[in-house]
């Protein structure tokens, strides 16, 4: 798969960002703003909603502990996001951090080709911080009982903002 975002372009992109790019009334108001930063060892990348949407998309419907009823989640797989960063092979575990600084560590062994996804669409539309957006690590809980455990519940971090290798 060809990485959408190269290291060089990411650096130049960062230089052009306003300091308060993330601070606004509404995330959706600024589609070009970086909403996810990933740093694996020395490699670092920033993703906007658009660059995430350029990655191969996976979608599924599931119920969760934190929502009501069946909901359709869509977005790139976590694996593709990490691979886009370009240094996934040396990483054994990553730390996922939310906007409220809640963080959790995930072993890369748990990352499959189809799950989890970095969901940036619920029922086909982007979702705001108030709706646990704009990014939510999501597992297909209804698809496999294996996912319905404390480990995966804990890993299903919403308002995701940073990923870094441990």
């Amino acid at each position, binding site marked *: 798969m060809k990485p959408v975002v190269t290291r060089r372009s990411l650096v130049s992109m960062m230089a052009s960002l306003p300091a308060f790019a993330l601070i606004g009334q509404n995330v959706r108001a600024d589609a070009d703003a970086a909403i996810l930063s990933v740093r694996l060892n020395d490699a670092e990348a920033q993703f906007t909603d658009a660059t995430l949407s350029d990655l191969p998309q996976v979608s599924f419907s599931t119920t969760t*502990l*934190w929502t009501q009823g069946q909901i359709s989640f869509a977005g790139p797989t976590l694996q593709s996001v990490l691979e886009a960063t370009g240094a996934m092979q040396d990483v054994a575990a990553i730390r996922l951090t939310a906007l*409220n600084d809640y963080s959790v560590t995930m072993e890369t062994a748990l990352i499959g080709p189809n799950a989890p996804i970095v969901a940036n669409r619920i029922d086909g539309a982007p979702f705001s911080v108030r709706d*646990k957006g704009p990014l939510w690590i999501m597992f297909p809980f209804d698809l496999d*009982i294996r996912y319905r455990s404390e480990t995966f519940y804990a890993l299903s971090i919403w308002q995701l903002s940073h990923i870094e290798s441990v």
Partner: protein
Amino acid sequence: MSLPEPMGPIEGIFSPPVRSIAARVLTALLLAFAVILIGTAIKLYHNIDAVRAAESDNKVWNIVQFEVDYRDLMIASLQAQAAAQTGTDTTIAAGVARLRLEFDIFYSRINALFATLHSSALAPEFAAEMAQLDTARTALATQVDALSLGPEIGASLSGFHAQASALNALVRRLSVDALQLLIIRTEDARLQERQLLAAMFGASIALILLTIVSVALSIRLGRNHAAAQVRIERSTALAKAAFESAVTAMLICDADGRILLTNPAASEIFGHSDADLHGHSLHETLIPQERLAEYRRFLRFIRASGEGGDATIGPVQVSAQRASGEVFPAAVLVRITQLDADQRLILVFAQDISEQVEYETRLQDAADEARRYATAQRRFLATMSHELRTPLHGLRAALDLLKRQSLSISARKLVEIAQQSCTHALQQTDSALDAIRATHENEAIVVFDPVRITDDLTAEMSLIGQDDGTRISLEVGGTRHGNGFLGRPRAFGRAMGNLIANATKYAPGGQIIVKLDFAPPDAAGQVMLRAEVIDDGPGIPAERLDRIFEPFNHDLLPEQKHESGGFGLGLSIVKQAVAVMGGDIAVQSDLGQGCHVVITVPLIHAAGMRAAPVAADALPLRPAPMTGQTGRVALVVDDARVNCALVAQMLGELGYEVDTAFSGQDAVARAANKAYELILMDFYMPGLTGPEAAARIKLAGASAQATIIGITARVDLMGSDAGAPPDMDRVLFKPFGLAELEACLKHGATQPAAADFSPSSDEMALLRATLEMCGDALGMALLHDTLGLAAQALAEITQDPAGCAEIAHRAAGAAMMAGFHDLGCALRALEQAARAQSDAGALAPFGDRLASATEKAQATLVQIEAMQKHHPTALVS
């Protein structure tokens, strides 16, 4: 000798030793099943517990985090207010951004909380609190969205903080209530799971118990099987003992006749060792060479009889062969049994009956001897009777002559008495002869015409009774479809003759009505003939009717006895004759009522066959005027005037002008003066006998060139044909009819065999043997098959003359075996001819012969079937 090992599957079903092991293995499996079930249940319980705990933990985290996020929001609010009072634009902007982020986080947390607590079973006050929180959140959101980095930012932030602080108590209360709710729900869920698990355990235990019961039942069944096997072994041992110690030889063979098993008696009777018998075919060992064809036919029958159903044949007497080659009579019973879908067994039970047969043969010889003595006795009696008749006729003639002379009244009276006595004596001798015939005659069944016989009898009796003015009339009714019927004409003639004679005797000068009535033939071609003789005589007292059929019953009517004479044998002869025909007789009579006798006789309608030319003891006669149109003259010589008149009438019918003479001397005198073309002369006459008179006539005179035919009453029991005396051209045996007379005159033939359509007794005996051996049903089928083959051979002559020989050969074999001798010969001849030349034209004469033989055999078969159907014993006499 021993029974062979039991067959494979039987051994498999009943072998017992694996039973206890199987039970143990089954029990162990059940235990393992129970352990696995329990283990799985426990594991499941733990898993469910773990999942529930995980969910529960996460929900608790959500609730706790709800308060934490609220605190974070409040901190961000305070910090933003502090920045607004003291900080730069940058710090203010950062503080407001921080506040917005924390609010959004708190906002989203409330959604998560609602989802966590979502349930339809929320307490109303709790739901109200949640609604209150939702409203407050919306209000705060409006304020946050309205924040702008202007001079009023400080006031705005203060307002927001005041409003957010007001939520403190609600947040706290909701957190605590939510936690409590979660704990209660978790407890409920756990309780429910326990109950479910308990139910599952219960169900599992019930299942295990059911399985245990099933195992117990199967063990019980296994024991029953074992017990059954013991019983089977016992009965097998018993059967084996019976088999081995039986006196009857038993042979168990397969459907091809291969011997599978024999008992010691078989070895003893047939003289073969076990090894000689087992695996060999019956025909290799026990069937004599000359009986092979029958044996093969039997096997074919078994194969042809198809699948299913057991059958028993016999017991029948057959010829069997010992190891020494000795052929002996054996009584054999064959049972065909279907062992399973594709195996049939032939069970042969055989007994050596050579001693019994020898004993029976000796008995038969003794009986034959006795019969010979009886025959000799009867022959003597018959001879005596016949010898008596001639002098009696002479006596009567002499008395007639004497009466013509002028006598004193007393002398005339004496002569009349002598005449009566003489007539009486003649009747008695006739009756005696009749009685002898009736008792000892075994008459063959032939085609005849009952109307013709009755007609002739009526004519004859009319002649005899005309002196008394007796009138006899014949009425024929019913449907006949031709004149030919299969039956016993002599018996019929005897019965009718005696009935009419009786009526003539007892009702002199009266009216006698003879009626014949033919019922329509039934499906088998049987016709019931009802013959009635009705007279208007004095009748028989009703109380004596039951005794009139007894022989020598003289007291019919004491006052008539003297007048009518006779032995009193008449009705008993009728009864015997009717019995021979398989019919019934009934008499209705009373004093002054006349007598009405009815006989009912079964006959077989013989479509398309002509009646034999003459019948029975009757002397057929057609009253016809003597005509002399042709100018041929004949002389009839007989001392018995009735005979003389009868023969004269016959010759008249044949166109002769007839003269009669009542003695040899008279005949010689007449023949010397008139040139007779033909002279019929009785052998035994008073004075000059027939042959003596013939010698004189031939010596010289006008009739020296005449054809002289001797007439003699053949006493059939004597059966001796001595041939014609030197001066007679031919001999004609009494009784004879017009046809015989004509034939004799035309061709010089003696009487044609009346039994043209009657199978020879040999053929009957052969067919009977076939039927006895095979049983009636099978036997008849075989006979029909044989005829079918013959018909096929006949058809082949025109269709495929070259292939005809083969079929003829097979048909010939079958016919010979079945007992159709003539048919067999005809087929043999055809076969030989067909092998020599294959021209259809050249084979035609053989075909004609075969056709006639087939027709004859067909007639025989019809006869046998009819006899079997109506008189099963008729063939075994």
